[in-house]
């Protein structure tokens, strides 16, 4: 993926938090992930890309972020555990889905796969170069990881 295309994922990440919660997220400086670098988090929402491009988008989140976000989106004071897990998938789905406007009709996104803990043996592979967008919403750090072919 061209570096210039990363902008679409930056925009959709920022737009998500602003529109869904009314509270902006902030982004750090994006970088290219080293092949041996692990990114740890409680839950990862993964979207596979197929059609005109190949690859995946990972959104790697701590549990408190998902709990607070789920409460904000539903308007409920407390949300069940399965809903917190589901929030990781929906966040990844929306960030990927919103970025589709910048690609062609054959840029296809999958339904989300949700992984708890460190992602292992996942069939939805990131294509190099893999970009990491470090971000923060409230006091919660998270990362959007994008690896899509040209």
């Amino acid at each position, binding site marked *: 993926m061209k570096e210039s295309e990363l902008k679409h994922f930056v925009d959709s990440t920022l737009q*998500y938090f602003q529109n*869904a919660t*009314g509270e902006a997220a902030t982004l750090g400086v994006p970088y290219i992930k080293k092949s041996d670098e692990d990114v740890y988090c409680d839950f990862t929402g993964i979207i596979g890309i197929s059609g005109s491009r190949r690859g995946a988008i990972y959104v790697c989140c701590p549990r408190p972020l998902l709990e607070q976000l789920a409460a904000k989106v539903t308007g409920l004071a407390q*949300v069940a555990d399965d*809903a917190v897990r589901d929030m990781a998938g929906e966040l990844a*789905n*929306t960030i990927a*889905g919103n970025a*589709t406007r910048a*690609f062609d009709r054959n840029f296809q996104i999958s339904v989300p796969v949700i992984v708890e803990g460190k992602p292992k043996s996942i069939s939805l592979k990131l294509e190099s170069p893999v970009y990491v967008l470090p971000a923060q919403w409230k006091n919660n750090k998270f990362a959007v990881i994008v690896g899509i072919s040209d």
Partner: protein
Amino acid sequence: MKTLIVDDSIIMRTAIEKFASELGLTIVGKAANGKQAVEMFQQHMPDLVTLDITMPEMNGLEALEKMLNIKPDAKILVITAITEKSVAIEALKKGAKGFLNKPFNEESVKNAIREVMGK
């Protein structure tokens, strides 16, 4: 107005149910994929459906066609994260009465439902 909510996300179904109920709509079912949605549609014959597109088993566009074949005057509001324009055009051509992009908030969902109900 009988309403069916279709989305593979629990969070989205919960949020839409809350906002639709506050508008006085009667939720007759919640489906997590297109196949289940068509089955529930046949069973409950709802007047309004909120419909996601990217779902397992059967996607929303396919479910949309099947539901409108069963009840052509059903009002269908597509609610999806996909912002690629041709998807919205295809949904409206197939008979959807409205299209709302995620992420949504309470106000945007309620406005979109009101608009579709008025058509």
